[in-house]
């Protein structure tokens, strides 16, 4: 699988007084198995962008190719695209509706037209992947904690066996343990399924610690697209657009200025620790 986004533009509420260009000439390529972090302040266009990737929004101009096929082609089936590109929205409350967790997870595969048995196999498989306690499978999804609801919502999309999984701020509002659990799931998905993941996040620390590539959106433009280490070298520019580097990068800057010869491009605590131990 591969996704090619070629110069897409999106104009919001075209022709009204609310008209605003949400995406400007955005182009990039995503290959199978990548783990990408998408960052940008609120209103930078990142939510609009991810909704283009599964066809919920149609670009005003430009093209998106999934596996070399133009998704805006007349004959292209957008529902197929949505089966391949799974999108988990920020609030699980927006999608949970069945009276048991298990039935809720079956909703996606059922829409794909699979047999009851096949749906159930997939539901079991994806609930296992998100590590939900088996005793909870037949409980109401509304009785769960915030972190558990998020996991059920992810399972609901995984059950459709997508090739790409996009998550919109999956850790917002979760406590540190809940956040770690979500990242553990993403790690497992990559190891077991080699699934491509795009993660929208506000936490630079989380992105720095987990992804291989970061895309930075600012005012509808794809401003940077690089490895985390190279991205956070631009921390001064990032600050100008309402973002920042992980705290540990700043700490290392301070230590360097105090006369220690440490690496200032460290982006995780592990790297920082090593570098300090080497110089001292």
């Amino acid at each position, binding site marked *: 699988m591969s996704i090619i986004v070629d110069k897409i533009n999106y104009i919001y509420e075209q022709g009204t007084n609310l008209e605003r260009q949400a995406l400007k000439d955005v182009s990039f390529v995503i290959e199978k198995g990548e783990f990408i972090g998408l960052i940008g302040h609120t209103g930078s266009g990142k939510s609009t962008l991810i909704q283009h990737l599964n066809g919920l929004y149609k670009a005003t101009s430009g093209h998106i190719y999934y596996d070399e096929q133009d998704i805006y082609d007349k004959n292209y089936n957008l529902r197929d695209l949505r089966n391949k590109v799974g999108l988990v929205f920020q609030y699980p409350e927006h999608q949970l509706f069945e009276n048991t967790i298990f039935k809720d997870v079956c909703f996606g595969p059922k829409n794909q037209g699979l047999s009851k048995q096949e749906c159930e196999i997939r539901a079991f498989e994806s609930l296992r992947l998100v590590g939900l306690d088996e005793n909870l499978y037949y409980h109401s999804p509304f009785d769960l904690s915030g972190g558990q609801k998020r996991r059920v919502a992810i399972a609901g999309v995984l059950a459709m066996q997508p090739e790409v999984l996009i998550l919109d701020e999956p850790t917002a509002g979760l406590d540190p343990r809940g956040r770690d659990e979500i990242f553990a799931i993403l790690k497992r998905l990559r190891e077991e399924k080699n699934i491509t993941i795009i993660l929208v996040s506000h936490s630079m620390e989380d992105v720095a610690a987990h992804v291989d590539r970061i895309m930075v959106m600012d005012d509808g433009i794809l401003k940077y697209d690089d490895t985390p280490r190279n991205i956070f070298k631009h921390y001064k520019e990032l600050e100008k657009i309402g973002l920042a580097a992980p705290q540990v990068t700043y*700490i290392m800057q301070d*230590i360097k200025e105090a006369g220690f010869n440490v690496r200032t491009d460290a982006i995780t605590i592990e790297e920082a620790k090593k570098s300090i*131990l080497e110089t001292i």
Partner: protein
Amino acid sequence: MSIVKAKNLTFEYIRRDEEGNVESINKAIDDLNIEIEEGQFVAVLGHNGSGKSTFAKHLNVLVSPTEGSVWVDGMNTLEHENTLQIRQRAGMVFQNPDNQMICTVVDEEVGFGPENIGVPENEIWERVEKSLKSVGMYEYRNANPTKLSGGQKQRIAIAGIVAMKPKCIILDEPTAMLDPNGRKEVLKVLHELNEQEKVTIILITHYMEEVIEADKVFVIHEGKLQMQGTPREIFSQVERLKEYRLDVPQVTELAYELRKEGLDIRPGILYSNELISELKRIKEERNVDNSR
């Protein structure tokens, strides 16, 4: 004098099945004793479901203790006639900014509280102006609150409480739904209110960065008060915090990791300059050792 005091506070959620039989009893708060000094900036830490929000609701008489008592500014929350006075003196801001806005214009929203406590018309206008200025939102007084950013909405919600002239503001995870910039805006406003207006701030949160500047930190876990002290005292116990499903700021974590590797760094590092002076001391000591 303490503005908030809880003694042997216990609160049980009782779940009933369809016939009304008790299905389970869940102790959200379990024999909690807490005392908060007037004028302080206090943080209450705990993971989701630790009971910290239930505790906050007691301070505003939104729930009543199953056992034990809570006093706010010397008034017992169990005595019904105190309710309105307590709510006026200890205002509360909630997590979701959209779900606590009642009006469609910012100034009316801020005026809602004063209207309820019967403040005369002229004085409401004065209070609204002053409190909007104190959160830096005065130029938005005629705006529709739903059109504002999350951080701005929470500042309006805070102004709505400030307009009631409270002694104390309780905030139940006010930044959980905000982006980093919104979070900074809200924290700045809270510190200004605390320093300039001497309002007691009780901030319920699980973001560690918001806690560093607090005067005192309480850690609640499974409905019990597990730790209390200054941020430094609390953050010097990294392992214990992890046990309670909490994090520490990255600089504290880095110092802790270095300490585990055998460097003699003191526990409870909160700022990078503290880490630097520890590193300098260690390096000098090593140089002395080497030159010997």
